[in-house]
């Protein structure tokens, strides 16, 4: 039984590469390949939103992968490649949008919310701390 399960698990694991979209390597150089994979993982597929172009089989994703590869071969920097994408599809296409006037709110909002939550938390805790510890002591006291 255990043997069967092991065999099954091994077969399932072996099939995982078949699920990958790009099985072929884009670059021989491992450093370039790593950079390429990072770039395509951070680029949103514009037609199948909520997927990166690394994870998508849509052909616009394949086209964008090809374009990114071409730009890398041409020696473009990551910033220039991001420019290429943003010019055509807007900030939305980058999973890590750059800090500009338009995306400032995206970057600041989390910290504002944390600050807001933190202040609220401190206030609630302070108020609770100044309350009597035991329920019995509260008898006759103001209920909050």
């Amino acid at each position, binding site marked *: 039984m255990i043997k069967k399960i092991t065999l099954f698990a091994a077969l399932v694991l072996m099939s995982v590469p078949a699920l990958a979209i790009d099985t072929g390597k884009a670059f021989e150089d491992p450093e370039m390949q790593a950079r390429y994979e990072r770039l395509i993982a951070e680029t949103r597929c514009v037609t199948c939103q909520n997927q990166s172009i690394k994870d998508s089989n849509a*052909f*616009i994703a394949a*086209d*964008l992968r090809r374009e990114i590869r071409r730009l890398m071969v041409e020696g473009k920097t990551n910033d220039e490649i991001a420019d290429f994408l943003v010019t055509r*599809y*807007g900030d*939305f296409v980058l999973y890590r949008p750059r800090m500009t006037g338009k995306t400032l709110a995206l970057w600041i909002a989390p910290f504002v919310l944390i600050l807001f939550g933190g202040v609220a938390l401190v206030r609630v805790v302070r108020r609770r701390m100044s309350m009597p510890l035991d329920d019995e002591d509260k008898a006759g006291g103001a209920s909050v």
Partner: protein
Amino acid sequence: MNRYLLPLLAVVIMIPILVMGLRSDPSELPSQYIGKPAPQFDLPTLKDATKRVSNADLSGQVSLVNIWATWCGGCRAEHPFLMQLSREQKIPIYAINWRDNRPGALAWLRELGDPYVASGFDEDGRVGIDWGVYGAPETFLVDADGHVMFRYPGPLNRAVWEREFEPRIAELSK
């Protein structure tokens, strides 16, 4: 009373933001080219690979650039309306046949009619990417100076035409 003021303020601020979120369609990507020159293109035409169609053909007139392909269901849906538009001769319709195969696309035009002044044949989809296309069909309204005035993603029909295109075209021809 004071302790309700802050939450109330927060709600009052949040409601319009959330309503805006509900109303906007998150799958619709605004074109980056509105008010800007149309991206450069220079493609062989679908009918004759030795001829070219490019930005130069668009200049001097208000025109449509329609992105279509035979694999695209919405393109089939809008095709009869494009035929009507071309019969009415209101506006020249140019096309970019996007990521398609030539024989299939030519058969489509023979079968359903050809509403286009010219179709550029964008076999590998590079012009599509340059135009910021994210799905077919898409239709761009280009003014006489070659600026993109409007982009509509999805199939055209009479209602969309009257609502989205006619007022803009009227504005341009003033």
